[in-house]
């Protein structure tokens, strides 16, 4: 995966936008009185995905796009989702 290629970035951005939309709809309809923990964890996932999208959209401030940062974001996203589901 080379994030410095525009095609790869577009694909990853599309996936993130879809994820953001799905989670936003889920958060809108969730019953926060009974699912407070899930609400917090999904909000963390939403913010992480948003940050990853900004990373792909904006020009990198320190040189080129780095795969490691994106993978770290994916890991934290997975962690937040695990927090919500488990």
């Amino acid at each position, binding site marked *: 995966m080379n994030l410095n290629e525009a095609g790869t970035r577009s694909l990853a951005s599309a996936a993130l936008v879809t994820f953001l939309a799905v989670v936003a709809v889920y958060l809108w309809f969730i019953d926060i009185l009974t699912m407070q923990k899930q609400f917090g964890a999904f909000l963390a996932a939403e913010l992480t995905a948003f940050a990853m999208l900004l990373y792909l959209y*904006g020009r990198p401030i320190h040189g080129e796009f780095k795969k490691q940062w994106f993978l770290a974001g994916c890991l934290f996203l997975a962690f937040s989702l695990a927090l919500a589901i488990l």
Partner: protein
Amino acid sequence: MVVAFFVQGITGVLMLLYYVPSVDQAYSSTLFIIENVPLGWLIETLHLYSAYAMVLLAFMHLTRQYFVSAQKRPRELMWVVGMLMGFVVLAFGLTGYLLPWTVVSKSATDVAVGMLGFLPGQLGAIARFLVAGSGSDASELLRFFALHIVALPAVLLILLGVKMYMFEVHGAIESPAGVRSGTRSVPWFPDALLYLTMISSVFIAFLLAASVLFPLSLPPQFSPETAASFTPQPDWYFLWLYQILKFVSFEGTGIIYALVAVPIIFVVMTLLPFFDKGKERRLGQRPVYVTIGVIMVAELIVLTIWGYMTPGQVISDLQAVLVIGGTALVVVILSWAMYRRRKQVTPASSSSGSLSAAVLERFPILAIVFVLLLAMASVTITSSVDLVSSSSNPLLLASSLVLSAFSLYFMVRILRALVAAGSSRVKSP
């Protein structure tokens, strides 16, 4: 830090909807927020963790600014304002800690307020009155509440405005040679704005995940009976001070020496730009200031961990000298070895430029590993001192010493790698 302050403001205002600053209802209203208000526990935990983050980030920012010599001309006043902001952040922690009126917070605050009474002359009475009012629990809580939600935010915002203005005038500090090269200007819109939004989102996501993972649980309510069976201990960011105050020399009337010495250190730190007037900013050329800085950071970490491990335990002078002096000695030896090695490094012997570039690129990871090793060394060295003085469990003592040696060895390796890389970067054309 600004984002953390923003999170503090939002969550604080939300808590104000339910929190009642009276001795009878402070605890029950906090408990009500946590147990009954929808997402109240999340807001309360976010408030706490963002406060922790603010203290930690302020400390990291201070350390970073010290080591890149940000206090040097023409940014002397920026440093002074930054230090004042740091004190305000600590005051936020102190005042906010009391508000839930738990046995932990009230007992620790009583110790802190009681210490003010030892200040010489009328200073003690004036300071106590300003902080705790007439002396009753109700006036103390009300004073702390007013300071926490009105006075301190106002002061912090004013100082932030002044610092931002000075930042606009002087601009960002350049990286010292050998740490990073090749800077370019970045437009505020959209690049810097997108970057800051991204960092803020990640930061809040971390806070949310931490809050979900480790939600706040309130200790028992304060009452004289529960307090009697409880060892007061401050929050982690005051543990270093707590540990100093437990030294046997500072017990009783000796506390006055601590109350004079600690503010003197703070004043010297605040006025540092007026002592350190040299123009040299590179780490490799400032051995004395770098060594003093590392000693301060190391002592702070050691005292914090030691304070956490020994709640309520009075520390003998011998132990204090061994740990404080030992830490300083270790840092001085490491620093001496590091600078000696730096002098010996020649461009030919300092390996290739690509290797040094690789080491410098990993600087943040190496710095984190170094701090972890320093923490491990702190724990094991303080444990060793405890075990030697109590002369118990030789196996534990041996393993503690081995771990200390292991941490110190790898700390030296990291420092040597960084110095070698930094030297070759500076010397290579």
